[in-house]
């Protein structure tokens, strides 16, 4: 089963995602796909704290800031993946090291995510809803927003369940939640 979760920040998306992934994993392995790429000692420390917190919940952390399909080899063992977040993955793929911008990252990552969702068995994907404001952005930000929306729409179409989280309340747009 695959579940797509989006909504505003600090609204309870990750909490719901962790609970859902745990339920989907059953007795199998529970993988957390960590998408944040650390840039300094402060990031390293934040990641160490998060890894320790998740280990207590039974998560095995897979560090994968780019090339998400690399994680698929683990799918043979059953269990479930939690990918938090699509937002960070696309950011890493679009804004490359050395200040290089990949304008086609949206299409490429959406394609990767579709393949991942079809082959992974069980997974929960977390994204961020950044589309409803009056901001007028530069072309880089607009390309990113368009790319993320493409990833979101692709996953929403492919996943069994689609949930919008609003202040820890859940709006079910498609399917059912296993928790």
């Amino acid at each position, binding site marked *: 089963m695959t579940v*797509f979760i*989006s909504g505003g920040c600090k609204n309870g998306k990750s909490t719901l995602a962790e609970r859902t992934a745990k339920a989907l994993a059953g007795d199998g392995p529970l993988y957390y796909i960590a998408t944040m790429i650390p840039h300094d000692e402060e990031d390293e420390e934040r990641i160490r704290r998060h890894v320790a917190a998740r280990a207590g919940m039974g998560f095995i952390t897979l560090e994968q800031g780019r090339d998400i399909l690399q994680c698929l080899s683990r799918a043979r063992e059953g269990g479930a993946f939690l990918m938090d977040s699509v937002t960070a993955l696309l950011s890493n793929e679009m804004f490359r090291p050395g200040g290089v911008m990949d304008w086609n990252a949206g299409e490429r990552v959406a394609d990767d995510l579709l393949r991942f969702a079809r082959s992974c068995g069980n997974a929960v994907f977390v994204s961020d*809803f*950044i*589309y*409803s*404001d*009056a*901001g*007028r952005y530069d072309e880089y930000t607009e390309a990113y*927003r*368009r790319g993320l*929306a*493409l990833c*979101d*729409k692709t*996953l*929403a*179409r492919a996943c069994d369940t*689609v949930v*919008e989280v609003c202040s820890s309340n859940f*709006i079910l*747009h*498609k399917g059912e939640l296993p928790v």
Partner: protein
Amino acid sequence: MDLIIGGAFQGKLDYARNAFGLREEEIVTCTPDSEPDWNARCLCRVEDYVLDCVRRGVSPEEKFRPDAVLVGRDIFCGVVPIDPEERAWREETGRSDSRLSRGADSVTRLFCGIPQKLK
């Protein structure tokens, strides 16, 4: 009139095309510097028409045809902008969409490509 709202890039126009069988020539895109073609079957980017009204200092009119399909972005959800024009635009779009919703035969919100019937 049928109203379709949602965030940027959420698949609003694709939904409008499919749900109402719209042909491309029936879809007119509003701009922030001209009066829309009120005879159009479908007016999209309604928020840009509202921006045009804000710039001219007038209230948005509702001269669309009775069977019109209106498509607009819900730009009123984010942070209050510092720019006075953006601030007025955001508020006027909120008011305008509420008015349109009250008079609409149906209101649909798009979330990541999935339609949600609000009315």
